[in-house]
């Protein structure tokens, strides 16, 4: 049984103007579908990453799983007891008026057996003395360690990490990613890892889901996705990543931008930017089969 299972989960947001404006200006209600029929499973001990550009709905999926939003449709099954979340901005996610001891002890309020705060500080590479300090006394990387210690204190089976290193410098990012890998190995944690950074995802993930305009367009093992990307959008994303090796490999220039999610294109949401789109792509939404949602692949055109 998977630890986490999403079945055709959707989430709508009402972004209509206030009632009075709608009546006077005769505007209809406007609904933004941030997540559209997303399904996937996460097994115990693995890392599933969701990647995509801003506005693709990856953070909304994280919040749906954490229960911060309720799904509009579909169902989410969690076969564990506890999950915790790590957020992007370690400056906003720690209460500035609380000492580190209180921050880390908070999740333990709901546990039967209480452990020592210093144990968790040591696990994330901080010193037990740091418990008496306030968040502002720490650097960004150290704050993210405190966030991780707080998450661990809740003894979670699943950790949802929403861009955990995006606000950090690369050398600090390396420290945090190494720490997360160590903790996973030692404690058998399961990670749902949300990121826009494909290089980071290629390092941490066992499996990767690529999202575009609220949908998963491709889901594959990390090794397959990065060596043999299938969906045209995945290929485009990988082509757009700056080439640090300076191999001078030929690449297709990226065209266009993500469309407005309030008025998504009909058919396949990627068709206006897709070099393989045909008439069918413009009208019919491709079904997600065999790990990819693309008419061209289904028809064997690419």
């Amino acid at each position, binding site marked *: 049984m998977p630890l986490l299972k999403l079945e055709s989960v959707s989430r709508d947001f009402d972004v209509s103007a206030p009632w009075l404006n709608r009546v006077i200006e005769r505007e209809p209600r406007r609904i933004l579908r941030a997540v559209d029929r997303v399904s996937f499973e996460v097994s115990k001990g693995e890392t599933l990453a969701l990647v995509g*550009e*801003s506005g693709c709905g990856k953070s909304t999926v994280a919040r749906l799983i954490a229960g911060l939003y309720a799904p509009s449709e579909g169902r989410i099954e969690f076969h564990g007891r506890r999950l915790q979340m790590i957020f992007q901005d370690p400056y906003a996610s720690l209460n500035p008026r609380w000492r580190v001891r209180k921050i880390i002890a908070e999740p333990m309020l709901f546990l039967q057996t209480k452990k020592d705060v210093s144990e968790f500080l040591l696990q994330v590479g901080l010193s037990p003395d740091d418990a008496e300090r306030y968040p502002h006394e720490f*650097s960004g*990387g150290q704050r993210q360690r405190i966030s991780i210690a707080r998450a661990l204190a809740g003894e979670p089976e699943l950790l949802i990490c929403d861009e955990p290193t995006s606000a950090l*410098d*690369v*050398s*600090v*990012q*390396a*420290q945090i*990613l*190494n720490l997360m*890998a160590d903790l996973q190995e030692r404690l058998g944690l399961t990670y749902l890892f949300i990121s*826009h*950074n*494909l*290089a*980071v995802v*290629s*390092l941490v993930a066992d499996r990767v889901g690529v999202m575009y305009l609220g949908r998963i367009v491709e889901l594959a093992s990390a*090794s397959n996705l*990065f*060596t043999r990307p299938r969906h045209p959008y995945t290929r*485009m*994303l*990988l*082509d*757009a*990543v*700056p*080439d*640090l*090796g*300076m191999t001078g490999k030929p690449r297709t*220039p*990226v065209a266009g*931008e*993500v469309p407005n999610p309030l008025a998504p294109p009909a058919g396949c949401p990627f068709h206006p930017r897709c070099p393989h789109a045909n008439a069918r792509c413009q009208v019919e939404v491709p079904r997600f089969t065999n790990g990819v949602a693309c008419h061209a692949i289904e028809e064997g055109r690419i």
Partner: protein
Amino acid sequence: MILEVKDLTVQFPTRRAVLTAVDSISFSIAPGEVLGVVGESGAGKSITGLAIIGLLEPPGRIAAGEVRLEGQRIDHLRHEEMRRIRGRKIGVIFQDPLTSLNPLYTIGQQLEETILTHLPLNKAQARERALSLLREVGIPAPEARYGAYPHHFSGGMRQRVVIALALAAEPRLLIADEPTTALDVSIQAQIIALIKRLAGERGAAVMLITHDMGVIAETAQRVAVMYAGRVVEIGPVRDVIHSPRHPYTVGLMGSIPKIGIRQERLLQIEGAMPRLNAIPPGCAFNPRCPRRFERCVIERPGLLAAGTSQAACWLHASP
């Protein structure tokens, strides 16, 4: 050389001490060349850029050294003179395109104003030039978008407008401070290609400030690596990436995750960059350096020849 910076030092006097944010750095940029300036937050990259364009916020000031633009010293010019040079000879692109554009004017008005301020053209010619600039930076149907306000544009399109604005008066030097950091990867690739093409075509010098080594690898010919206000390594991009000479650059390159290379762990530099009020004596990197020896703690290294690059590291001192 279009830009020559020599022994530039920027200090911030505070009540307790004088903080040195940029410590005696030197570099130059040739016509058509893109120099990348890379480093982590607080390394002094942006302050260097601001010092060159004369936009340091007081109490920050240039304490020593000189900046020359096409041979002319510009570091001690008065505010009015510097204002004429900015825009005319130096174009600037900042990270957040929303803060560089005035939300109350249409993009057409903003472009026209810049062009009329700096170039001897009449209004009709200015409009013509503005339209051709917008076309050049890849804005579809510029005639239709001419009267639009900045908030009508997406992030990537706004950054294109900012680039058009920076190029409006055909500057000799373009300073781009994290121009793609706020953008998605697919848009980032488009903007990088644009900056590269425009600099090449016009023979302008570009100083590209970023924390992203990938962006530098794609765009720049040479790169300067900064740490704690100093340039620790400078050289051709390919050499700095493939055979870094300074232990900090080695650590920095090793800590970047790379696609297509199966790696379990990243190389890790222990600790963090020192604060400005606690920069250690000798080499600023010595407390974190795996290859430190006695001399590093006592004496500060200057840039020493190391292969095709230069590195501020005693490992490269000739015996």
